């Protein structure tokens, strides 16, 4: 009897294909290593051993693994490696918690930038890649993980993570070289390819090859993975959780911290406006047409911060980790509809009036004229309103006089104000998150009478 009824033959074979691909990739890597990496003087008492030996051994183990999965007939337990429970539960604890999730993504981001010249080393990057694939393959033996990561619509997200990772690697890899060149007064490496070639055949042929390959990929993908079709639409059966399409899950995640008018309308507008404004506020002439990091640190870091932890990581969170009732669930955790999370968030005005002043909130008289009510509301919310105004109006000049002095001098008033406000808008999300986590703050300004909550 199969002791793991959830591990169907299809899943095991699928894993076999994954291991096979990884093994083949490592065969390639062994060859590359044989050509490039040289020899160990002495290893296990043998002289002159190619460094590629380790990779070859690893590749053969993977190959054995793949074969075992692909041609298995006995119990899966004979060859399956599964993740130990303590590993799973610890990963779940770390991931199913907004604070540690966000902190970890920031830590990874910082480490990525600080140690960029170390991890872009091809061998290191290859090891990291292998680790991530092994993590994925081993996790696939877990039922709950498979339920969520294996959903057909979620597969592209996994692909996206690898693509984003690869291109980020490529960027920093090229920057390592170019940063060094620019520091020594040399032109960037791209400059050396400035000879012109004819479009036919050089460009046209590579376009053709690209198209053929892509067509093959799409057809294979279509054959392997049926498009999802759930039950017919029903306006009365609300699924739990109800999720927007995956590319909007970053925005949906913001709903946890902001009201819809902010998370769904204002912030997306600011993101798009901010993207369009980039060419007009980036006054730095360096780095046009080649990859550099050092000489345009601020621009690159801002963009990477917005794209990686605030967009991609939020999509991952929204897709894989947000479950029923928008609670967070570990990767290996069952999506229990009854999981309880206590939320008692309070408004800033509550903190001010109830906790600090020890008196009830000013309450607008609902029979009075609207402007009379408004005065009471403003009195109730004055602290939050002042803070918001300070944040958006007083902070930019302070930035101009301190940290961003040089920027301000070169950008001029208007450009700088736009930049400062965009940056502040971008930081409003992590700030609100931090306030929520540390003070249980719900709204800084809470005027539900006018649907105006921040």
């Amino acid at each position, binding site marked *: 009897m199969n002791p793991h009824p959830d591990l169907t033959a299809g899943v095991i074979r699928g894993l076999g294909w994954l291991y096979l691909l990884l093994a083949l990739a490592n065969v390639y890597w062994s060859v590359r290593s044989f050509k490039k990496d040289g020899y160990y003087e002495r290893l296990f008492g043998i002289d002159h051993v190619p460094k590629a030996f380790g990779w070859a051994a690893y590749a053969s183990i993977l190959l054995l693994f793949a074969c075992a999965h692909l041609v298995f007939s006995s119990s899966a337990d004979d060859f399956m490696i599964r993740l130990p429970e303590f590993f799973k539960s610890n990963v779940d604890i770390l991931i199913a918690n907004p604070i540690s999730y966000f902190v970890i993504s920031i830590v990874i981001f910082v480490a990525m930038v600080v140690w960029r010249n170390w991890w872009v080393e091809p061998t290191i990057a290859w090891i990291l890649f292998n680790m991530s694939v092994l993590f994925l393959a081993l996790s696939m033996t877990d039922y709950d993980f498979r339920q969520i990561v294996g959903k057909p*619509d979620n597969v*592209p997200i996994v692909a996206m993570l690898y*693509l*984003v990772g690869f*291109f980020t690697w*490529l*960027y920093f890899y090229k920057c390592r070289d170019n940063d060094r060149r620019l520091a020594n007064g040399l032109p960037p490496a*791209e*400059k050396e*390819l*400035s000879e*012109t*070639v*004819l*479009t*036919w*055949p*050089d*460009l046209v042929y590579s376009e053709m090859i*690209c*198209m053929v390959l*892509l067509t093959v990929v*799409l*057809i294979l993908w279509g054959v392997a*993975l*049926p*498009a*999802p*079709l759930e*039950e*017919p*639409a*029903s306006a009365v*059966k609300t699924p739990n959780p*109800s*999720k*927007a399409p995956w*590319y*909007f899950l970053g925005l949906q995640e913001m709903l946890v911290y902001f*009201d*819809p*008018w902010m998370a*769904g*309308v*204002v912030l997306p507008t600011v993101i798009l406006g901010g*993207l*369009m404004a*980039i*060419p007009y506020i980036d006054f730095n*002439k*360096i780095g*046009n*047409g*080649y990859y550099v990091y050092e000489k*345009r640190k601020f621009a690159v870091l801002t963009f990477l911060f917005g*794209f990686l932890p605030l967009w991609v990581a939020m999509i991952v969170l929204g897709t894989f980790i947000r479950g029923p009732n928008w609670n967070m669930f570990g990767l290996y955790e069952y999506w229990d509809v009854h999981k309880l999370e206590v939320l008692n968030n309070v408004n800033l005005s509550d903190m001010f009036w109830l906790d600090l002043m020890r008196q009830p909130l000013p309450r607008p008289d609902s029979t009075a004229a609207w402007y009379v009510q408004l005065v009471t509301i403003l009195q109730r919310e004055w602290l939050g309103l002042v803070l918001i105004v300070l944040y958006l109006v007083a902070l930019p000049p302070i930035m101009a006089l301190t940290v961003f002095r040089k920027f301000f001098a070169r950008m001029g008033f208007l450009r700088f104000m736009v930049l400062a406000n965009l940056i502040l808008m971008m930081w409003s999300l992590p700030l609100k998150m931090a306030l929520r986590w540390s003070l249980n703050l719900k709204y800084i300004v809470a*005027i539900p009478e*006018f*649907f*105006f909550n921040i």
Partner: protein
Amino acid sequence: MSSIIEYIRKSQIWRSVFRHPAPYDRRNRAVVVLTNFFLHLHPVSVKKGGIALSYTWCMGGVTFFLFLVEALTGVLLMFYYRPTLEWAFTDIRALRDVTTLGIMREIHRWGAHAMVITVWLHMYRVFLTGSYKPPREFNWVIGVILLVLTLLLSFTGYLLPWDQLAIWAITVGSNMARATPFLGHEGPGFQLLNIGGYDLITNASDARFLLLGARTVGEETLNRFYIMHCVAIPIVVSLLIAIHFWRVRKDGGISQPL
């Protein structure tokens, strides 16, 4: 064999289709790019660094290719799909269960996901190479609009299968619109738009209603999204892509160090 090919190439029919001799020598390789409709998007010659795969990541080109794939498979799907409450779901299920070449739907769906990803990656590379800097500022702006339209294409298409996944994703997504400041019936400041005590903005006249054509996602929405998805947005995207490519060339080709 080669003489047959020669014969065909010299025939009047062939020469009427292709206005140039075969691209065997340098001169004719330039001519072929200039005189062929599909190739004349390109300049005759390009900088080697500008077309290096490790430089452009080919992501703009891949996005364009995916757009073409989507157009092709989309038209094929339109032959099978009727955007009505009665048929939408059944037609899609038939694509899965009975229609020959129902795999068109898979390719269309995965192609759409892939296109969203490749647009992002294209933008990522354009940013990281600083290619938005002068003289290419405006092409970046066109690009951002293309990004929005790509997402909207994907979003409007998401509704069409009319299954649970579809209507609830669109419900969640479009619920935002009712919180639009001033223009949503739960948005800040909508009360200001009233005449003699009557609100102008209600759940039957606000931004969400405009999007859905109804108070909730229903038949009107399906129709509206169908037209947006199959006609309106693709036309605008095609136009903008044309301008985008035109600008790439007018701005001096793919960016390179000066």
